[in-house]
């Protein structure tokens, strides 16, 4: 019980200098950006909440796309006058219907990755290991952004493949070869990846899981509903630049004249992401933990 210096269990390897008490000869293990990235990668996958939220994100993306496509098809088949919402529907817009819900799951995961460290106290361990602090934020954002991007892109394609099969033979039918479809699906993946990054930034900025999720929901789900109350003359000028609307234009297949083009939408959405990260960096560097 009271063995004090750790004796290596394998005496045939005498070169275990970390255990040596004398400090002079031991190797120096420096903190590098790549190592912090590896640490954050390991941290992400060692929590059950990661698997749950990612699973939910994928489920929402695919399941809601399939549900929307099925609903559309049954609506057409029943021969009734199609719903107004469905008048301009395409296989892409139907199968990406789940984006709204998937963004919540991925954004929440982003918030958990940063704000979760504050609520549990883990942040003290993290910042003691990496006292320069900023590499932690970049690594968390990069890891989550990459994972969300890959998952969401795969999910978007899966949803489209399933959805387009369901709506085949209807006016909304569309194949992968159709102009703009692949760009649209990649755009959805990119958008959801960036929502994850914004989630990490909000979590680091607010240091509270509840606060981070509230702002996330407000920005992406409440604000779009509220802007319909604004005067129409504002729509083109301000509304198109809101994170929700700029983000949506990244993966919109048909170009709405009041919305931004996909390229402009992406630039604006990247701008929002950068703003959130800048705020998070500022708070991370200045505040006591």
């Amino acid at each position, binding site marked *: 019980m009271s063995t004090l210096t750790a004796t290596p269990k394998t005496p045939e390897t005498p070169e275990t200098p970390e255990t040596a008490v004398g400090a002079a000869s031991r190797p120096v293990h420096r*903190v590098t950006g790549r190592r912090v990235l590896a640490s954050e990668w390991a941290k992400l996958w060692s929590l059950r909440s990661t698997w749950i939220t990612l699973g939910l994100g994928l489920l929402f993306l695919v399941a809601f796309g399939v549900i929307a496509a099925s609903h559309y098809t049954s609506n057409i088949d029943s021969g009734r006058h199609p719903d107004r919402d469905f008048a301009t529907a395409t296989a892409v817009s139907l199968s990406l219907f789940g984006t709204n819900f998937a963004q919540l799951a991925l954004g929440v995961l982003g918030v958990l990755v940063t704000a979760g460290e504050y609520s549990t106290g883990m942040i003290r361990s993290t910042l*003691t290991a990496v006292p320069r602090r900023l590499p932690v934020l970049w690594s968390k954002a990069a890891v989550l952004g990459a994972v969300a991007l890959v998952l969401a892109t795969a999910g978007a394609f899966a949803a489209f493949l399933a959805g387009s099969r369901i709506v085949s033979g209807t006016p909304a039918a569309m194949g992968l070869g159709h102009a703009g479809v692949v760009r649209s699906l990649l755009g959805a993946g990119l958008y959801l990846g960036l929502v994850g990054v914004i989630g990490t930034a909000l979590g680091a900025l607010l240091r509270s899981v509840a606060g981070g999720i509230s702002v996330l929901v407000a920005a992406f789900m409440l604000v779009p509903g509220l802007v319909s109350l604004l005067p129409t003359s504002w729509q083109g000028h301000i509304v198109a630049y809101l994170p929700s609307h700029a983000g949506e234009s990244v993966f919109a297949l048909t170009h709405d004249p009041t919305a931004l083009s996909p390229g402009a939408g992406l630039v604006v959405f990247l701008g929002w992401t950068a703003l959130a990260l800048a705020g998070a960096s500022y708070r991370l560097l200045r505040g006591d933990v």
Partner: protein
Amino acid sequence: MIEAQQLTKRYGEKTAVDGLDFTVRPGTVTGFLGPNGAGKSTTMRMIVGLDAPTSGSVTVNGRRYARHEAPLQEVGALLEAKSVHPGRSARNHLRALALTHGIPRRRVDEVVELAGLGSVAKKRAGAFSLGMGQRLGIAAALLGDPQTVMLDEPVNGLDPEGVLWIRNLLTSLAGGGRTVFVSSHLMSEVALVADHLIVVGRGRLLADTTVRDLVRQAGGDTVRVATDDPARLRDVLAGPGVEITGRIGSEELQVTGVSAREIGLKAAEHAIPLFELTTQAVSLEEAFMELTRDAVEYHGSTTGTETSGSAA
């Protein structure tokens, strides 16, 4: 080596740490003592850069902690509050910390064994008892095989076996030439392991001393003597290093620098009758209480007997 210079931390109106100057040297165990709310934890958080000083500075091995390339190899810290994600297993927690420095997996296994966590390493840290949580914190502190080990209230929540384990660990780390800095609000606990003491109260430095000096300063070696002729006894005992106090008109004298035995012999030699001859032994706990009496943040109501053993 930890060096603090005029280290100060204010939270709005309240000054948690007030112009602390101290040095923690390698090769010894330095105890960091003070009542609750004295600023010990805040000081330790500033040492590892979690809190920024309002003014002043603190360095580790000559540099601010954050400036080191391999911080975990400089200082291993156990902080007061839990610093673990409850959803992660002990091993995964240590592994994630090790990865930031590229510390090999083998070392993770070593500290798991060293802290006695082998059987629970795969359990979620949230399910750990207080004592197991402390052991995990200590395992994390030792991960980088650091030059300086800093532990905030390490025996909190440990069972007697764990307390003994900590004591031996601290002594052996200091014996290996490391700087060991350990805080406590219990003098009795620190006195068993510490050679050097830094005592704080209300954020101010009260004493930077050794265990023996602290007792002496608190009047540990005072002899109380009562006699028929205090004036003559004063003359007889007077000498270098001897200090004698006593109220005028009183038969009683307080003498330091001479043992009770010598006083008795001298008095007999000069035929001075003595009525009382008592060595006043002051315990470390009493010395500590005396030192921090005015600095205790929250006084309990002492309607009953004043117990010197109760922790502030």
